């Protein structure tokens, strides 16, 4: 499945529906919701953690967490 972890630098995606059991509540509170846009700004060495722009706000998450959130990549 295509997840946030699959994003390349500068790529954007729209978050698809996901199970609330896997994603931490704090991420939801910070705007990581279905229908919102997520873009990869940068990653650390070894691609973990990933620095994202989620719905206008910047945050960093582990690749492991990013792999839980399915997205639909926006074709440039």
């Amino acid at each position, binding site marked *: 499945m295509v997840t946030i972890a699959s994003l390349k630098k500068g790529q954007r995606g729209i978050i698809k529906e996901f199970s609330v059991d896997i994603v931490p509540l704090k991420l939801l509170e910070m*705007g990581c919701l279905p229908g919102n846009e997520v873009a990869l700004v940068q990653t650390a060495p070894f691609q973990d953690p990933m620095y994202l722009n989620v719905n206008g706000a910047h945050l960093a998450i582990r690749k492991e967490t990013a792999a839980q959130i399915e997205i639909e990549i926006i074709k440039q």
Partner: protein
Amino acid sequence: MAKQFNVALIGNPNTGKTSVFNRLTGLNQQVGNYPGITVEKKQGICKLDRGVKAHVLDLPGTYSLNASSLDENVVIELLLNKNDKDFPDVAVVVTDIENLKRNLLLFTQIKDLGIPTILVINMADRMKRKAITLDVAALELRLETKIALISSRENRGFESFKKAHHQLQNPICYALFKRFKYCPRVF
């Protein structure tokens, strides 16, 4: 005779609540450019318009009323207990202009509690650099709340902030979530 009441500064971490607190009270609480600096309640006094003396309470930042740590719990315990001596008469939600969307989640939760609320949008000095414009009047109408656009770094906007308090003297508070519209049977 001066009346006094409680004002609580609530908001996401790192929005400048403590800087606003320092400006209002003249105190010098610790600030830093990373979240997690304020971990407990801090109190001070501020004189608002027309002789009103306010007890200002600076609180730790939280993203919502679902607490996930001890310092976020401080905020929730205060807001859910009407009998607490520090329970606010006015809740000031401090948000930052660059992350306004994210900050509004907490704002809507506070507003739905039914406490008279003022929305403060801080870091106005960043607007020019980031080419952000904001229609404050339209937002005030949409959110049904008084908004004060301030910059605590440049000490601007505090007069309108104090004036906004005065307009809350006899508030009628509508929760943003229109209960009767969505589900009259349940609510």
